[in-house]
């Protein structure tokens, strides 16, 4: 393995490297430094009040009940919403791929529409759907004789309501990825399986799923990272309420940073989230099925 380090190659890469340095590496380093200070509203007015506090922000974070609440909420969202989203998108992909050949492009488009719609617009519409009195959802429940539910106001229902909306919003994207994965599976494998007497379920288990494993890994990682960054849904729909049941880590970071202007503390939240994401991604990577990968 020899890497060509000719000056010409470096010259070609230089603009991209410079962009990455200025717009990525520098801000990351700056916010790492920021997380070691008590940068707050006083420090904006008078920079001499800025104090280096070492790891105090991180220590405070670990003792902050709001952070643990946000972490628990976010983990719930990831652990329930992530697998649900993957399962729904896989089911949709299989359905679109297999049976509805005639309407394939129609369904593909319809399922993909929520993905390309602006999240904030979607959240506003869903807030109306969830409305306790005029919402369509409660209207449907009333038709079944079920009393109206306060979807976003009830402490037990708010998170499931957000998960439901997020799954609807995101499954189309994963479905398209799964479809691409499905189309890459050679037809001869199914042919061989059928000759061996495998039914539909056995084909799914022994042909489709193993062949989709690399796709599944990619979808799991990208969905996991996306879910951990939960922000716009609670920001628009519940503002973190009721009693912080939908407060996510990123929403906590936003509040600390831009509402209270505790930039040092907010930066510490950001780095803890980064560490969590890194750990979860590494874990998923380690769990990947080897026989399919290599």
């Amino acid at each position, binding site marked *: 393995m020899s890497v060509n380090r000719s000056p010409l190659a470096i010259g070609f890469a230089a603009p991209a490297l410079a962009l990455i340095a200025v717009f990525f590496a520098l801000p990351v380093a700056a916010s790492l430094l920021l997380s070691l200070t*008590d940068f*707050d*509203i*006083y420090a*904006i*007015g*008078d920079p001499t*009040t800025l*104090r280096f506090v070492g790891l105090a922000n991180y220590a405070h974070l670990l003792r902050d009940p709001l952070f643990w609440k946000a972490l628990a909420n976010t983990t719930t969202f990831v652990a329930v919403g992530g697998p649900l989203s993957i399962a729904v998108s896989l089911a949709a992909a299989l359905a679109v791929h297999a049976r509805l050949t005639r309407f394939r492009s129609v369904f593909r488009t319809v399922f993909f529409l929520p993905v390309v719609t602006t999240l904030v617009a979607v959240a506003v519409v869903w807030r109306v759907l969830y409305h*306790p*009195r005029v919402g369509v959802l409660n209207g449907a429940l009333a038709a079944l004789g079920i009393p109206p539910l*306060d979807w*976003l*106001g*009830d402490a037990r229902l708010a998170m499931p309501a957000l998960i439901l909306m997020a799954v609807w919003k995101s499954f189309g994207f994963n479905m398209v990825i799964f479809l691409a994965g499905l189309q890459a599976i050679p037809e001869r494998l199914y042919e061989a399986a059928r000759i061996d007497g495998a039914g539909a379920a056995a084909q799914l288990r022994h042909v489709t799923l193993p062949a989709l494993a690399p796709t599944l890994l990619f979808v799991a990682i990208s969905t996991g990272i996306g879910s951990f960054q939960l922000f716009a849904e609670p920001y628009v729909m*519940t503002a973190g*309420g*009721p*009693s912080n049941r939908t407060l996510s880590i990123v929403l906590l970071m936003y509040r600390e940073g*831009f*509402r*209270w*202007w505790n930039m040092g503390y907010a930066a510490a939240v950001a780095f803890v989230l980064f560490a969590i994401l890194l750990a979860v991604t590494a874990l998923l990577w380690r769990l990947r099925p080897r026989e399919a990968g290599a």
Partner: protein
Amino acid sequence: MIARALGCCAALVLIACGARRSDTVVEFWALGGEGEAVPPLVAEFERREPGIHVRVQQIPWSAAHEKLLTAYVGDAMPDVFQLGSTWIPEFVALGALDPLDARIAASPELARGDFFPGILDANNIDGRIWGVPWYVDTRLLFYRRDLLAAAGVADAPRTWDAWLDALERVQRARGSSGYAILLPMNEWEVPVALAMERGAGLLRDGDRYGDFRAPAFREAFAFYLELFGRGLAPRTGAAQIANLYQDFASGFFTFYVSGPWSLGELARRLPGALADAWATAPMPSAGGPPPGVSLAGGASLALLRGSPRAAAAWRLVEFLSEPRQQIAFYRLSGDLPARPSAWRDAALAGDPRAQAFREQLENVRATPKIPEWERIAEALSRACEAAIRGEAVPAAALARLDADVDALLAKRRWLLERSASP
């Protein structure tokens, strides 16, 4: 709504075209409904001051705080802007505001005072005035007069004892069909007003530490919790109340504590049969002469420190403070005038519901004027909710609150110590 926004845009373009090159262009940020209501007044101001052109930018309330802060950091501040009165300490700490004492002393319009003392005090930090009150806001009792009369209570209660008695009677009369009073359990305003009425300072030692275990606060807190304990108020949060006005109309609750915005909302939303069934009354007193204390709120006009157009911007502030413009603004927006003399206008003098606010405004007090207050209020809401839900006994909730508040004030203590020992 859209037509209105387009109309505003068109008006702005026309005004912009009308500006001559030699005009001083003053940038003015007005928030929410005030931003929608103020353009006619600004047009009148421009007629009167031919050399000054004002560019009004309307900022929604929900984004205003962040937008002002980022504008300050990004050096993109307007020359004159509307500030919620509780935000003033924060912007003073930033160094964003121009102290106004000298300008007020030199202004024939403003030097004569004519402000509600509690409201003016909210603009006074460390002995200097940082904002001119534009409109005022406070909270008091809204109640169903018919339900109160049905329970055998003739007049609105003036003292805490009379209040508790009235609530008990209403509760007995209503039975299980409703509650005597609605107090969303995560709102801090009512317990704070009650505590101030009892004489609680909330913070101690020059706002260095929380003082929520002081006897005055404990007593007021106990009174507040008792309203829930006796079943007079439902244990419900603000988010669970689907439609306040519908619940008020149906008699689900008889009393609630709210601000001037409810005057307009109730007039608009209640069915015609109930148009005369509701009234307002000042907060009851705990022992002294009524009314009891309520919170000083509203918004002020502030000048950007170092603005090259400060003189022209100040002319606008003076203009908007004239009692005549204050009344015109009340008619446009429903915001209550900050100048007591404006209240002599027939529009307000003949409205008993507004007059309750007039009486209340003589006894309003500002929450502690430090940048950390909003965070402290948030911790206070948590403590209230925990105590009402029974998750913590009151003493434990208050001890926890004091500890939280002490932690929030750590940097303030350090700053005060630093400035004390140069």
